């Protein structure tokens, strides 16, 4: 009996020790960004509900992680794909959770959560742009959702091609990249053109296989970067004339993560270099933007600040641990860097 009793006692002791082994999750105090800075949207990992928002304060030179949760007492959900500020509001497009989180750009406090569903099937929003108080969001089920930014009512849908990715506004029109990305190997290779006065598709332009990124310059050019099919069709860059909606040129192009700032386009090459491409000469003007040898393990996304000429490069590291953001001045010298969440995929600049 003594043996049994002492064993039970031992077990109870173990139980208590183990129960005290719970580590409390750290509660980050609510930080209100009152000054200029940048928001980093971290995708997190598929099915892990760990997409987060990091805010970097320029003045305090300090990054605060997961401020969406701190401000709202709930998480962003699964795979935040795009973030943009329009007026006083910030729009966070969450792909797998199939929501658009509309928040106050100053505090990240939720104003409205818009759900994008077709019955119970998630439409999976990807990317957002704005035009005349309307938000246009690509919806992976082959549509563009139109949302009135004043009333934030349920979206209207315009049908486009398969699995639309990025979109861009130029010359009163919307250019939508139809990737067909979920139909490997049978990708889409078109751009849908939507007349923003009527919200109808007016043209469908053929570009390279699997178009992903779209940007427009001030000179009447729309750039469409296609990822290719990872087989015989390599990645390519098409330039569309926004007057005629005709492809002016299409060339094989080693790059991804295309962004534009003024007359410069920035890309990440397959060799993990950041390159600069001129929107006027249509040539690569700098094949290695980072001039001080700063090493970035996995360049993942780019952003640029038009007023300072700064370029921001995110680092996804091994895609499963916390990433980082590196800030470079216009000459490509590293100014500072900070830790972000898992897979930092998009940056929004907040200038007060």
């Amino acid at each position: 009996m003594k043996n049994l009793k002492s064993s039970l006692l031992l077990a109870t002791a173990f139980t208590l020790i183990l129960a005290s082994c719970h580590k409390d999750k750290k509660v980050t105090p609510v930080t209100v960004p009152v000054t200029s800075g940048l928001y980093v949207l971290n995708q997190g990992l598929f099915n892990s509900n760990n997409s987060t928002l990091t805010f970097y304060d320029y003045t305090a030179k300090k990054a605060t992680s997961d401020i969406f949760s701190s401000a709202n007492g709930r998480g962003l959900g699964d795979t935040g794909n795009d973030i943009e500020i329009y007026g006083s509001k910030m729009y966070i497009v969450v792909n797998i959770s199939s929501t658009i989180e509309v928040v106050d750009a100053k505090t990240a406090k939720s104003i409205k959560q818009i759900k994008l569903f077709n019955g119970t099937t998630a439409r999976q929003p990807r990317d957002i742009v704005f035009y005349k108080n309307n938000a246009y969001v690509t919806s992976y089920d082959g549509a563009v959702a139109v949302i009135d930014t004043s009333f934030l009512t349920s979206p209207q849908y315009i049908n486009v091609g398969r699995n639309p990715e990025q979109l861009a506004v130029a010359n009163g029109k919307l250019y939508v990249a139809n990737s067909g990305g979920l139909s490997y190997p049978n990708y889409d290779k078109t751009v849908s053109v939507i007349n923003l006065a009527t919200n109808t598709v007016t043209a469908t332009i053929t570009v390279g296989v699997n178009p992903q990124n779209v940007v427009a310059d001030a000179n009447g050019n729309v750039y469409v970067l296609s990822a290719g099919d990872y087989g015989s069709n390599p990645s390519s860059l098409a330039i569309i004339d926004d007057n005629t909606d005709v492809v002016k040129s299409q060339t094989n192009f080693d790059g991804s993560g295309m962004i534009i700032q003024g007359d410069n386009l920035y890309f990440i090459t397959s060799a993990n270099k950041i390159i600069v491409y001129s929107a006027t000469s249509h040539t690569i003007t700098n094949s290695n933007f980072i001039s001080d040898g700063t090493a970035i393990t996995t360049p993942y996304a780019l952003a640029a600040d038009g007023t300072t000429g700064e370029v921001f490069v995110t680092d996804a590291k091994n895609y499963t641990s916390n990433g980082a953001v590196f800030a470079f001045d216009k000459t490509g010298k590293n100014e500072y860097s900070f830790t972000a969440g898992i897979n930092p995929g998009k940056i929004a600049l907040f200038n007060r």
Partner: protein
Amino acid sequence: MFIKANNSKSNLYSLSAGLLCLLFALPLSLSAQTDTAKKLNEVKINGRHLPQIQTPTPSQQISAADFDRYSAFNVADAIRNFAGVNIKDYGGIGGLKTVSVRSLGAEHLSVLYDGVQINDAENGQIDLGKLNLSNVQNITLYNGQPSEICMAARSFAAASVLSIATIRPVLTAEKPYQLLLGLKGGSFGLINPYLQWQQRLNNNWSFIVNSYWEKANGRYKYKVNGDGSDTSSVRTNADVDAKEADGALYWTKSDSNKFNLHINYYNSERGLPGAVVFYNPTSNERLWNKDFSLQSGYERTWKNSLRLLVNTKLSQEYIRYIDPDYLNGTGGLDDRYTQREFYLSAALSYHFVKNWEVSYSTDAALTDLDASLYNFAYPSRFTLLNVLATNYTLGKFRLQGNLLNTYINEWVKMGKATPSRSVFSPTLMATFQPLPSPTLQLRAFYKDIFRNPTFNEQYYFSAFGSRNIKPEFAKQFDLGFTYTKAVNSFLDYIAFTVDGYYNKVTDKIVALPNKNPVILTIINLGKVDITGVDFGFKTQTKLLNGWRGVFSVNYTYQNAVDVTDPTSSYYNQQIPYTPMHTLALNAGVNYKNAGLYYNQVLSSYRYYLSQNTPQNLIDGYSVSDLSLVYNVMAGNKPLAFSVHVDNLFNENYVIIQSFPMPGRSVLFSVQIKI
């Protein structure tokens, strides 16, 4: 070679088709009988059974009589109390349940079914939740390998072995048959009738047929943390409809000359409830399985101690997976996979002198995989295993060792096959008995083993470039002791085991996501250092006025750290889903023909990613189950009732991130033996 094997396969397939129809009719006709079906659980109340003396490699066993005591419904439940075991449970009755032993990962565990491996070349892991207990006699987990040396070569070829032994007919000429009818049901909308028919044909021949039908809507309440909701939701699309028929034919000339033939058919359809994604909880994914296997074994021991063991197996596993919500514009995903294996094994052992035994085993297996995927590789793999083993007893020492050679060759229809390889893997073990009585035994083993990349790791979407993945190596060191003593006072016996271990994993196969969703990067990147302690204690009281108390506790400490890259942010941090402390205790009391048992499993916190940050933390949990067993005679027929209350305190927890576990649930069962 390849074509020849294919031919013989198709011949055997057609041969088995007839038998298959016969067996499959069972679960269908069974549902009509459920009203009268009853269930029996054998509860051993009398007699002292000392736990078997521990062998050079640590082993833990649970037998059918104890399944109720541990509130077990499937094989995964039955072994969750074992030391060193870490179950990855995706939750619910149809959820995937795999087991990792001593932090090595499910791919390093070999699951044997009556001595023959259940192989999954596609994924490398076996869903233990799919394995029903109704025809299981006992389950044994061996760290390293079983301690005998006359066994199939595959039994030497894994880091740990989970051996499932099925019920064998034990009948007499006076009562040449036994029929067992049972019914389980309860939470999750579960209804599970089963049937066992044992028949003695003559002095040499007997057979046993087992069949069950398991149907459940799988629904349970759960609470999501982090999405701002404070009400609980109901897990849907979690239904299961599984049928299994298993037949075994035995020919026994004597204990030293016997043959068996097993045929098994499993057919299931289930909903996959998927991860609970915030704000988007719906899943319409479904999975169908159709598994068929035919295996036979022959065993002969001659007077001069020469022993022969021959096993063969033919198996086919078909999977269909659909996701109608996948936005590919063609109505979603609809993928099919078919895996086939043809397996032959022979082992021969001989005692040169009384205390020296030598054995030689050889296994050949041909495995292939078809998939309805674009540019699929259609891989085939030929594996040849050769083992030379020896066992030598010298006074108080017992020394055992073996050398395994693995030769693997692969073919593909698309892309490039992995070059063939040949690997030598040694194992050494020893026991020492320091005292005159065998009460105390010291033991140690060293095993150097590897796991081959699975077909998925090697060939899934690999057409973009050939992956040349090397095997993942695991070196295991173990040092421990066992102390088993019959006590002549209040307690029947006490049994202690303590083992310290160190495992080193190199060339760990790691799948990394990529910028591109189609291309998974799979590389031999990881290095893991695992230090751990397994502790076990077991006792029971003597029978006193019909009362008996039973108690067991197992504790595991595991420090499994990633030592891949000193510059990474997760260097020297605990690997994902590995708790540092696990405690499982079981206590119960029997009175005459009734038993009441309490089971508790505690796990400390884990991280779901390599980086040990608070964001990646999953809280520890403590889950308790209560079970009640009652046996009675209905006329001269033994009748058994049991009730399990699982997760008694309704703990809200997860094992896998985004896959909530069920709260409190109840399972009733009744069984009659005729």
